[in-house]
C-alpha cells in the first residue's frame, strides 16, 4: 500500500466516522447531552438490520428503509420518556443514564445474539472497486459511504439553515428558555433532534456492518471514533465533524501504512495532539453549523 493509497482510503474511512459522529454532534449541539450509548445504538441498528436480512431475506441496503425510521421513532420516544428527565444545568445525569443504557443495550444484544462477530453481506458490490492507478483502487462501497456522509451533512446543514424547524432547533440550542417564549415546545424539539440523531446513527451502524464485523461489544469502540471525530473537528459544527472524521481516518490509515499493528493508536495520537494544541477543534464553534 502506497502513502497516496493510505491517504485516499483514510479519507473514505473518514466519511464513515463522520457518519457516526453526526448524531453525537447533533445531540450535543442541541441539548448539550453527550450520549455515551451512541456506539451501542449504532450496533443495535446493525442487529436490527441483521434480523430483517435473516428473517425476510432483504438486502442490507433495503433494510435501511425500516431500520432508519424505526430507530428515529425509538430515539424520539427515548428522549420524551427517559432522557428528557436528565435535561438540566448539570451534564452528569445524562452521562450516567446514557452510560447505563450502553450497558443495557450491550447485554441485551449479548443475550439475544451471543458474542459472535457478525457481518451484513452485500455480495460483489462489497468488494468491487474502481481501478484509478496501478496501486490505487477505490472500493465502490467506501465511495458510496463517503458520498452518503457528505450528502447527509449537506442535507442536515440545509435543514438547520433553511427550514423553520431547523431555525427553531438552533434557537432552542442557543437559548432554550427564550425559545419557549417564542412558542417552541422544547421537549418536542429535543425529541426531534434525538430522532434525527438516531436515524443517522442507525444508518452509520448498518453501513458499518457491511464494511466490517460487529458484535454486541463493538459499541464503545465506535463511540470513541465518533468522539474523536467530533472533538478533532470542533464541537457543535457539522462541517468540522466531516473534517474531523477525515483527519481521524487518514491518521489511522497512514499509521497503519507506517506500522500495521498501530492503526488505532495513530488515530488516538492525532486526537490527543489536537486536544493539546487546539482544544476547540480545527473549526471552532461559532462558525456556521
Amino acid at each position, binding site marked *: 500500500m502506497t502513502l497516496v493509497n493510505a491517504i485516499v482510503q483514510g479519507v473514505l474511512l473518514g466519511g464513515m466516522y463522520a457518519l457516526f459522529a453526526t448524531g453525537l454532534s447533533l445531540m450535543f449541539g442541541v441539548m448539550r447531552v453527550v450520549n455515551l450509548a451512541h456506539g451501542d445504538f449504532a450496533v443495535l441498528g446493525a442487529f436490527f438490520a441483521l434480523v430483517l436480512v435473516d428473517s425476510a431475506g432483504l438486502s442490507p441496503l433495503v433494510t435501511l428503509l425500516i431500520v432508519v425510521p424505526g430507530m428515529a421513532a425509538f430515539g424520539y420516544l427515548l428522549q420524551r420518556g427517559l432522557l428528557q428527565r436528565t435535561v438540566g444545568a448539570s451534564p452528569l445525569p445524562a452521562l450516567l443514564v446514557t452510560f447505563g443504557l450502553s450497558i443495557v443495550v450491550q447485554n441485551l444484544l449479548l443475550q439475544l445474539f451471543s458474542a459472535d462477530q457478525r457481518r451484513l453481506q452485500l455480495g460483489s458490490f462489497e468488494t468491487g472497486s474502481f481501478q484509478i492507478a496501478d496501486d490505487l483502487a477505490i472500493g465502490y462501497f467506501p465511495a458510496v459511504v463517503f458520498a452518503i456522509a457528505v450528502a447527509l451533512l449537506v442535507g442536515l446543514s440545509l435543514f438547520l439553515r433553511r427550514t*423553520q424547524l431547523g*431555525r*427553531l432547533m*438552533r*434557537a432552542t*440550542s*442557543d*437559548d432554550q*428558555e*427564550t*425559545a*419557549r*417564549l*417564542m*412558542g*417552541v*415546545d*422544547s421537549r418536542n424539539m429535543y425529541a426531534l433532534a434525538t430522532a434525527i440523531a438516531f436515524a443517522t446513527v442507525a444508518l452509520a451502524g448498518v453501513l458499518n456492518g457491511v464494511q466490517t464485523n460487529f458484535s454486541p461489544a463493538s459499541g464503545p469502540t465506535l463511540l470513541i471514533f465518533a468522539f474523536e471525530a467530533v472533538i478533532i473537528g470542533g464541537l457543535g459544527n457539522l462541517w468540522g465533524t466531516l473534517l474531523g472524521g477525515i483527519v481521524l481516518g487518514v491518521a489511522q490509515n497512514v499509521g497503519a501504512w507506517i506500522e500495521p499493528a498501530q492503526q488505532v493508536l495513530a488515530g488516538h495520537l492525532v486526537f490527543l495532539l489536537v486536544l493539546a494544541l487546539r482544544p476547540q477543534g480545527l473549526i471552532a464553534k*461559532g462558525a456556521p*453549523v
Partner: protein
Amino acid sequence: MTGWAPGGVLLDLVGVDVHYGDFQAIYGVSLALAEGETVTVLGANGAGKSTLLKAITGMLPITAGDIRYGGRSLHGIPVHQRVGMGIALAPEGRRLFPSLTVEENLLVGGHRARPGPWNRRSVYELFPLLRPLRKRPAGVLSGGEQQAVAIGRALMSNPRLLLLDEVSLGLAPIVVKQLYAALPAITASGATVLVVEQDMRQAMAVADRVHCLLEGRTALEAQVSEVTADQVANAYFGSITDAVS
C-alpha cells in the same frame, strides 16, 4: 381569538404572590390592564418587576392569587402556549438567539404568529436600522440594535399583550429615546403594552397609567396625568419616613 369587548380588561392580576424557593419576591400584587392601554410598572432593581413579567409569561409559577387573561385563568398553561394566545415578551437583557441572524430571530419570533399587522416588512419599517443588518448574526449587534430586534421579534407574533422588560437597560439615552419612539406605532396597531422600567421618565412619557413596585409590593397606582414626579419617586425609592422608621 374570542372577542371580548374592546376596552374591557385584558390582563388581570389578582393578589399574586411569587416565590423563588423560600424567598418571596412578589406580595399580593393586583394589576389590571384594559385592552389597548399602556401601563408602566416602575421600581428599583430587585423590586420584583421582571419577576412579575415572568409570572405572566409562565416562566415562574405563582404561589397565590390568579392571573387572568382575556377572561380566563392562565393557571396551568405552559409557557410555549401563551404566545399563541397573544402574550409576547421582549425579555430583560434582550436574550436574542446569538447564532441566528437578525432575520432568523424575527422568523423564530413569528413561529406561533396570530393574524395581524406585524411581519418582517412592517418590523423593518418600524426599525429601519435593522434592514441592512438582516443577514448579520444577532450576537454581534450593538445593544440598541439588539433591543430593536428583541422588540421586533416579540411583535412578529402579533401580540395582543406586549410585555417590554427594561428596554432602556445599558443603553445610551439617545438610543432609548429612539426605541421608545416606536411605541405609538405599536399601540396604534391595537396591542396592549406593559412596560417595565427603571427609567422613569421614558416610561411615564408613553404610559397611560403607572404602577410602582417597592420590594415586591404595590407602592403606588395612578393615572400618569394625575401623579407628580415626586410622588412616583417616593413610591419608587420608598419614602423618607419609611426609611427612618
